[in-house]
């Protein structure tokens, strides 16, 4: 798709004012419309999938009634069992998956851009390892009620440590550089992972081990409407903020110096966006654990479809990430039904080969 223009690349186009601009803006709108439609359809379909034998129209019925549209549409009250399954069990889970997928994907785009590292993901700065450590600590203590708080605190602590390390090592030598940030994050991740292993090894008993492991791999199986409120709220506020930074991130295309020469306050943007990414990722991880590969793969896949301009990449990655994680979670709860997999296993199982494929295609292209 992105290869189409190369055929005409060598022929000089008449410079009719901004033809390419309007064209690509139109194409962007088509993409946005298409992915939004796919997202909404996926909500209805994935909620219907499962043992109770519901149809998408049953789901639509429940949703319409719950949204107070029943009288308007002249439809009767839905079946109470269907209502319970759709509204209490599956809808919170599907919506949480969608919000987490959207948030991780947009954070992945921002991290890859800020660190100029195609292998960057939202967890790069030690966020997931920190969250895992916090979660493991409270799980071995049996304090499941404060799990989200512990995970959030763990991720924030890891981020603060990473940034302190990165800027201390960069003092007097250029400050917070991308490479230093990545390396500091790696160090903190390893340390937190070692601490987590130690906690599990030292004190986990019986079923706690499985509980912790499932958390480490990431899962939305326990999602409630509270999870929806936390994750969707974070995505709507912080994710939308990130998605609006397209022009700023584009200015980093040729690096920090060039961004600064284009009038971008580089240091302020980098610190500010890292903070927003950290808060959003922390909120997501507190509800779902550290679901891998979404924040790494989705940005690459979407970039392959629509190019590297962030004004298109950010919103589309959000929409595609939401749809992707909803379907991944649907697979996680259906392939080995009635047993469930942590969705992190599914995203890794899909993500790793897709990543290899993207690398392969990327090599063939350049």
């Amino acid at each position: 798709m992105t290869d189409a223009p190369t055929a005409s690349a060598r022929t000089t186009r008449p410079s009719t004012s901004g033809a390419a601009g309007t064209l690509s803006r139109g194409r962007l709108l088509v993409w946005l419309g298409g992915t939004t439609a796919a997202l909404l359809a996926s909500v209805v379909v994935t909620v219907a999938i499962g043992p109770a034998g519901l149809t998408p129209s049953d789901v639509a019925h429940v949703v319409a009634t719950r949204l107070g549209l029943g009288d308007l549409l002249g439809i009767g009250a839905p079946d109470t069992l269907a209502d319970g399954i759709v509204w209490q069990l599956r809808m919170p889970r599907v919506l949480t998956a969608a919000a987490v997928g959207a948030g991780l994907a947009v954070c992945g785009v921002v991290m890859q851009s800020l660190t100029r590292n195609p292998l960057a993901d939202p967890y790069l700065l030690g966020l997931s390892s920190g969250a895992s450590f916090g979660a493991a600590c409270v799980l071995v203590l049996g304090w499941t009620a404060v799990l989200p708080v512990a995970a959030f605190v763990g991720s924030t602590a890891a981020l603060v440590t990473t940034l302190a390390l990165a800027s201390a090592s960069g003092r007097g030598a250029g400050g917070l550089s991308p490479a230093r940030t990545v390396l500091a994050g790696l160090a903190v991740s390893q340390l937190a992972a070692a601490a987590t292993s130690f906690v599990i090894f030292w004190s986990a008993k019986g079923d706690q081990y499985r509980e912790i492991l499932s958390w480490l791999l990431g899962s939305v199986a326990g999602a409630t409407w509270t999870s929806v409120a936390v994750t969707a709220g974070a995505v709507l506020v912080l994710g939308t903020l990130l998605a609006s930074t397209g022009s700023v991130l584009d200015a980093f295309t040729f690096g920090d110096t060039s961004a600064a020469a284009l009038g971008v306050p580089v240091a302020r943007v980098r610190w500010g966006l890292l903070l927003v990414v950290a808060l959003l990722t922390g909120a997501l991880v507190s509800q779902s654990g550290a679901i891998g590969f979404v924040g790494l793969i989705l940005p690459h896949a979407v970039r392959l479809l629509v190019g590297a301009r962030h004004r298109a990449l950010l919103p589309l990655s959000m929409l595609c990430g939401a749809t992707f994680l909803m379907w991944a979670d649907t697979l996680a709860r259906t392939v080995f039904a009635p047993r469930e997999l942590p969705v992190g296993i599914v995203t890794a199982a899909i993500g790793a080969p897709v990543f290899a494929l993207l690398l392969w295609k990327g090599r063939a292209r350049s």
Partner: protein
Amino acid sequence: MTQVSDQARLEAGPRSTVAEPSAGRTSGAGLAAERVRWSVAGRLILDDVDVTAPPGAVTGLLGPNGTGKSTLLRLVAGVQRPDGGRVSLAGTASPDPVGAPGPSGAAREDLLAMPRRRRARTVAFVEQDAATELPVTVLDAVLLGRTPHRSLLAGPSEDDHTIARAALERVGALGLADREVTTLSGGERQRVHMARALAQAPRVLLLDEPTNHLDVAAQLATMRLVRELAREGVTVLAALHDLSLAAATCDHAVVLAPGASGHVVAAGPVEQVLVPEVIDPVYGVRTTVLRHPRTGRPVLTFEER
């Protein structure tokens, strides 16, 4: 060490027609960096450096590797902040009549105090070897030059596209518009960076070794473009390490000396600066200056001492 007089510094270059009246102690027009100082990790890199670049002329910033040419350009571009000193610009080249300078030079604008985005509309900087691994098209790369001219929430407008295409046409790269930047040759990429700087519509153009890695024809094409821009009123300051190219194409030259800290050993018209008395001690070579039989410009040849 030859310190060329202020009057010599203001003299018109051979091809330009600058006729500024002398404006007191420092130059009254164009770009002026005064007593600029910058240190890193306890090392003083630039120590009270004075560099001026008259408007409508090409000024070559010369000196051996490591004397702080790139650093000075970054400070002028506002990418880094100097530890001390002043960088200012007189509003002569602007089509805007409000900024017309009086003889006292009162209309000088302080580039360091200017808001970032306004500075980016005034000064464009083409750094050395700016690269990306992202699959951006040439047109999108050039459109980045419009960033300081539009709201950060809005996308590029139709006007921005028109300007970007005109910039590409100007550097002879319109045919590359839909290519990805990563697939370009070094010379093609350099032209794209020039186009991006042109799209910024700057009054000052800073170039860091713009002819590096280019073949002879591409070097000459780049310098011809730079001269044209200067004739249209842009103030050009270009770090160059090829003294012969500087002699052939620059109006003025500033030579930074090697050593622990960079400082200016000579500044003025190329004929007065690119002479053996200046070059030989700085580079440790023996220089012979010849005349080009057709252009009449200096041609430099070097021998080991």
